[in-house]
């Protein structure tokens, strides 16, 4: 089975994010980036599928943030091929641009299965998977938590629903799956293997000139959430804060 995995970079929330001058976007000038968590699970699911049913795994990523380190790690984890797409600049692209660029590269690969994370922390609705599926003319299933091949180009795909409900779907490949969690946590690879991959991994570097995209929506203002009125901000020194917290817990009968 030919599996393609999309890996995206997201801003690392270890650093406080700030709103850029103009108030319509985040200031990512000083932000550090890391691999999107659910994409990391998609890669793990792909490697598990390769290990259980054979095939090869191609990782596709757009060049921004700290993508090289993410791609070396993917190679160390077991990815067979790596496609790195260079756009006209190295900042985080708009969602639609990202979708067209990735779909174009994926068309050339012609995979039986495309896996990517079902969401990112800066796009909780997860529009990229359905959008790529639309451009490729393939079905999309999101919030996937397990995939098993059972021959004849068919997959058993497990999907989570609210309330701990789980569904098993029979899916004919090719298809695009948005992964929420792999069947096991992404495996740890020793740094020596990542360092070896950094020396030996070959990237298929592709340039892509994105067509102009008419955005259907535009951000008019970005601002930090205001504290809701029901929230009580407790101030004072440690003793005062601790005593107020203890008082609230006692008022509500949570402690005696």
């Amino acid at each position: 089975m030919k599996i393609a995995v999309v890996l995206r970079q997201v801003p690392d929330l270890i650093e406080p994010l700030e709103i850029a001058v103009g108030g319509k976007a985040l200031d990512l000038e000083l932000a550090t980036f890391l691999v999107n968590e659910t994409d990391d699970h998609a890669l793990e699911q792909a490697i598990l599928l390769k290990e259980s049913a054979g095939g090869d795994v191609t990782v596709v990523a757009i060049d921004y943030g700290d993508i090289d380190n993410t791609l070396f790690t993917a190679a160390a984890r077991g990815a067979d091929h790596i496609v790195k797409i260079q756009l006209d600049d190295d900042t985080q692209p708009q969602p639609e641009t990202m979708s067209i660029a990735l779909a174009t590269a994926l068309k050339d690969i012609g995979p039986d299965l495309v896996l990517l994370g079902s969401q990112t922390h800066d796009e909780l609705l997860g529009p990229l998977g359905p959008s790529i599926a639309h451009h490729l003319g393939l079905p999309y299933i999101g919030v996937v938590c397990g995939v098993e091949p059972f021959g004849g180009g068919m997959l058993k795909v497990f999907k989570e629903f609210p309330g701990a409900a789980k569904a098993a779907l029979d899916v004919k490949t090719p298809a695009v799956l948005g992964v929420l969690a792999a069947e096991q946590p992404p495996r740890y690879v020793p740094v020596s293997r990542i360092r070896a991959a950094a020396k030996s991994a070959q990237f298929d570097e592709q340039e892509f000139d994105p067509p102009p995209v008419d955005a259907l929506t535009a951000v008019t203002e970005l601002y930090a959430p205001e504290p809701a009125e029901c929230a009580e901000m407790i101030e004072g020194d440690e003793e005062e804060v601790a005593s107020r917290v203890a008082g609230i817990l006692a008022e509500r009968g949570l402690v005696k």
Partner: protein
Amino acid sequence: MIRKQDAAVVDDLGFNFLAELSESPEGKDVLGCMQCGTCSGTCPLGVAMEYPPRKIILQARSGHLEDVLASPSVWMCVGCYTCSSRCPRGIELTDTVWPAVRDFALREGHQPPVELQNAFQNLYMYGNVLGKSPRARLKWTKGLDVDVLDLSKNRQPVEVLWLVGDYPSYYPRNQKVAREFARILTALGVSFGTLGAKEKSLGDCDRLFGEEGLFETLVESNAEMFAKHDFERLVLTDPHGYRALHKFYPKYGASFTAQHYTMFLADRLEQLKPHLHRPVQAVATYHDNCCVGRRCGCYEPPRQLLEAIPGVELVEMPRNRENGLCCGGGGGGMWLDGHISEHGGRRLSDDRVKMALDTGADTLAVSCPYELSRFEDSAKVLGAEQQLAVCDIIELLAQSMGLNEGGPL
């Protein structure tokens, strides 16, 4: 390099393990193991290990190393060096067999315990085990009444490049110790600076945990950073880092003059003494940390500092100096409490606090950032937190110098 026909091994995995070990002079000593079992008997966690050091070597020789690599006991050594210290053949088991068996386990695809994976990932991504922002390295200096130079922003020659360490930089209990040490250095007129956001862990525990690649990455980065600065010596708050600089970095061609803070201050004892003007009424017992103590053989400087404090009466636990019991936090043990207890290991810090209580001391003095929280937790678990204060030697000195922030005494 040993030849397969000369080694009493029966399979390739065991041979490769012993052959790679034998590439270094200390590792070659492993070939001379006579299977006496002293290491296993003396290890404070040996009874809970399926494969203590003697058995690891036996399994490698007899073609059963794979069983060892899959065993939880691979991840149970806490780097206390007791086995190395007692081995009648002088084999450096802690620095050779343990990292090698873990390195092999990782290379063979075995996963380390999740809590340890997190520590590794944090080190790789952020240069500190706590997964904190590098830019917040000097947050502990906010509002401090003395200047702490950030050499990464203002490069200049200093006498001391102080490597603050991960816990004193980020963990609130240890940040207090960092602030008090900054005041002590200032009172002594020492010109010192830190690396600010550019400071990274020295990677000492990764090496013991077999993450050689991560350790090498940190050695390269740290050596390059130190070379950019003009200083007389490195001074470390963390004994694990001191051990790494003293014992491991030179093997990578990175040699720097380094001292643990107890050594640095004890060398300036006569200069320090006039500042110790306030009596500190404490019956203190000192816990020898394993890295400065058993690994580097340095036992007196911390005691000299404690004895110089007016009012402090120093009493010894029966297990002291070379015979000291580990707190259980070294060699990565700090991030393996869950794994060790799940597989039958004792919480060594509980045992050590009981030993301190048995002396009648009211203060357990330490000189390692890990030990404050480990021993304070144990004192609470044992219901002895009112009976026994756990203090870094820096805190006791600062109290006597009138530079402390209050605290447990």
